[in-house]
């Protein structure tokens, strides 16, 4: 066991560093539009030299690199201020799904442009009454009369980045008369189709990154189908499995920022807050958790580099990270004492980040599998405990009890 790069990896890292030094953009922009343009440029630049999607196979224009190289690049890149990443859902989830089940034409058409940052993708899974219970999706896809085309009608919700997306993968109900998991089919859709209407939803944090997406008579070709008719559930599992890998690090304030702020903020008895025993203990816990997430991820990467498939055990990182962000930002705001009620320009930069994290962390405990669902996964899939008694599995989907 060691943490040394192999000679090849060490060289890879040197090259990455040198390249980043030369190529990281000087300007990221301030408006949405500028940031998006900067993000697209950055992705194109990376893709041109094989840093766009490091593990993607040569066959599809990737460099066919290793999981370890990917970790190395991500580590090194995180030392720089780079543009935001609107590709994470497309490259992390949608395109891997396309590559797994799409036909040759589809892959040829989409993989390259996505990798080069030319096209943005979103994941149209959740619906108003199907979130944790993705298998309960109701958006309908029916065959157009006598044709092989499909007509899609329905509503998706919480779709991150839909407002910027060119394409999306959408899970649809094609047969409500069979048990829920058997009547689903996956398609890709053109987000610019006139039947697709995207309405941003304002989050409790004030921003609007996610959206409602209404699909009204959206006509798609049968060639837009991803996987078999009725095979949508299986396809969605591929997407969710790659999602697990993509969720490495949740963004938000970290222990190092807390420590820094605690050194500068007056605490109890006139000494810096960092001297307050209660805060020291919290800091110790957050540090341990943060490091453990990193090490857990390294264990997973090592396993992957030996050819293993990432399993449900990776859920632990998200369970820890999301809650930690919420507790840390809460404690940081409280550390300011009465001043914690202030927001806006009167806050220091780091205090502003604690505030922002406090208001975004609740979403992280929900997105990509809620705390509760992830615990169920660990209990049932890792520990082998019996599942819930199911009332929705063996009946036709239309007969499953519903509420709000």
């Amino acid at each position, binding site marked *: 066991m060691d943490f040394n790069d192999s000679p090849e990896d060490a060289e890879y890292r040197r090259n990455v560093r040198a390249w980043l030094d030369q190529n990281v953009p000087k300007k990221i922009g301030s408006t949405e539009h500028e940031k998006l343009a900067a993000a697209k440029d950055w992705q194109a630049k990376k893709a041109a030299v094989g840093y766009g999607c490091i593990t993607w196979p040569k066959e599809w224009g990737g460099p066919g690199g290793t999981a370890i190289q990917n970790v190395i690049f991500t580590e090194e890149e995180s030392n720089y201020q780079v543009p935001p990443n609107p590709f994470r859902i497309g490259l992390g989830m949608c395109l891997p799904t396309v590559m797994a089940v799409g036909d040759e034409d589809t892959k040829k058409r989409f993989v390259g442009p996505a990798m080069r940052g030319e096209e943005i993708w979103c994941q149209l899974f959740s619906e108003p009454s199907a979130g944790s219970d993705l298998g309960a999706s109701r958006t309908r896809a029916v065959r157009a009369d006598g044709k092989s085309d499909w007509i899609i009608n329905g509503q998706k919700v919480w779709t991150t980045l839909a407002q910027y997306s060119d394409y999306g993968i959408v899970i649809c109900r094609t047969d409500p008369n069979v048990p829920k998991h058997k009547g689903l089919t996956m398609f890709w859709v053109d987000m610019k189709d006139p039947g697709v209407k995207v309405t941003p939803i304002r989050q*409790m944090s004030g921003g609007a990154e996610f959206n409602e997406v209404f699909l009204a008579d959206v006509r798609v070709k049968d060639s837009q189908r991803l996987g078999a008719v009725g095979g949508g559930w299986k396809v969605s599992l591929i997407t969710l499995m790659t999602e697990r890998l993509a969720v490495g690090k949740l963004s938000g304030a970290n222990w190092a920022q807390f420590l820094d702020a605690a050194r500068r903020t007056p605490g109890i*008895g006139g000494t810096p807050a960092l001297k307050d025993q209660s805060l020291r203990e919290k800091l110790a816990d957050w540090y341990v958790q943060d490091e453990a997430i990193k090490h857990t991820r390294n264990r997973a990467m090592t396993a992957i580099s030996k050819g293993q498939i990432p399993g449900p055990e990776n859920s632990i990182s998200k369970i820890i990270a999301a809650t930690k962000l919420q507790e840390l930002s809460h404690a940081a705001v409280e550390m300011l004492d009465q*001043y914690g009620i*202030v*927001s806006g320009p009167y806050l220091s930069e780091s205090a502003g980040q604690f505030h922002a994290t406090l208001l975004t962390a609740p979403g992280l405990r929900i997105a990509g599998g809620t705390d509760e669902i992830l615990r169920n996964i660990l209990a049932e899939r890792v520990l082998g405990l019996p599942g*819930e008694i199911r009332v929705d599995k063996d009946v036709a989907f239309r007969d499953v009890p519903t509420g709000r």
Partner: protein
Amino acid sequence: MNFDFSDDQKFLKAEARKFLDGNAPASKARAILNDKDKSFDENLWRAVAAQGWLGAAIPERFGGLGLGYLELCVIAEELGRAIVPIPFASTAYFLAELIGLAGDEDQKSHILPKIAKGEMIGSIAVAEGPGVLSPDGVQTFVVDGKLNGVKIPVTDGMIAHTAAVLAYENGQPALFLVDLQHGSVDRENLDTLDPSRGAAVLKFNDSPVTRIGKLGEGWKLIESLFDRAAVLLAFEQCGGSDRCLEMARSYALERYAFGRPIGSYQAIKHKLADMYVKNEVARSSAYYGAWALNTDAPELPIAASAARIAASDAFWFASKENIQTHGGIGFTWEMDCHLYYRRSHQLSLVAGAPRLWKERLVSQLEKRASDGSI
């Protein structure tokens, strides 16, 4: 033993609930949250004042209802449940309490009747920046009856008529009353984490003041005042966290996943049961605080600390887990969940953060133990 509110007090509570259900739905707090130029709901303020609640604990001879603290506590709980966007706490729990505690006859007869009628909004100005304020950190001074310095943040500082300011005179701490409408006071609006409750930076430039209480006893007075406010705030927090539990419960009954109400899953059941336990711990602690406040018991500092610690914990937990119970929709601006999440921070910080109260509580217990009075 009779550790409960009387029938009359319960009736008052029910009436307050009815009034606030009609006059102060959460949409009122939301309207203030959405409007950058407003930091309170003036009509609601007038309507609440007309109920006489501001004077619930103010003696009749100073224009109040002369009821008592138990009555003020039940009102506070209902105000907290309704997350009212009005300066009730600043005025009734801080300024009125301060005047009652340390004011002279003249101050009482001038100020209390105005508060009781809703004609005077108060505020308390202690903090001077991020972190815990220590005696060395205070940079507000009074010389020859003139105040200079900056207080930030001051909850309700933009709309208050009068502020009670902690400052030093001749090297001695004291509290001073300042007329905020005086030309020597600059006020600047602050953005807040809970925009349904406003705050300001107050800059004093030779502002005329009158002292309240004894010179040298400023910190002691702040402690006594905050003990009293802590009990009343704890009731507001109990009201808010109860409302979160109600919201979570009714959503858990309506929302289905996997063909069942989400409330049928133990993950959700236990979450709601934990909220309930914390809320009841907070309520029992707040009741004890109410008793101590109402009887001026020597136990007040300990009772108030316990109430504040338990209630801050309960509201934070209930407000965050209410969002979690709602899933994606709980994370939206449209749902009311975040209003409570924000308010839980406002209330747990306005009289000093819980960790300070824990320190204060243990110091009290330590003192009691070394006095041999345990």
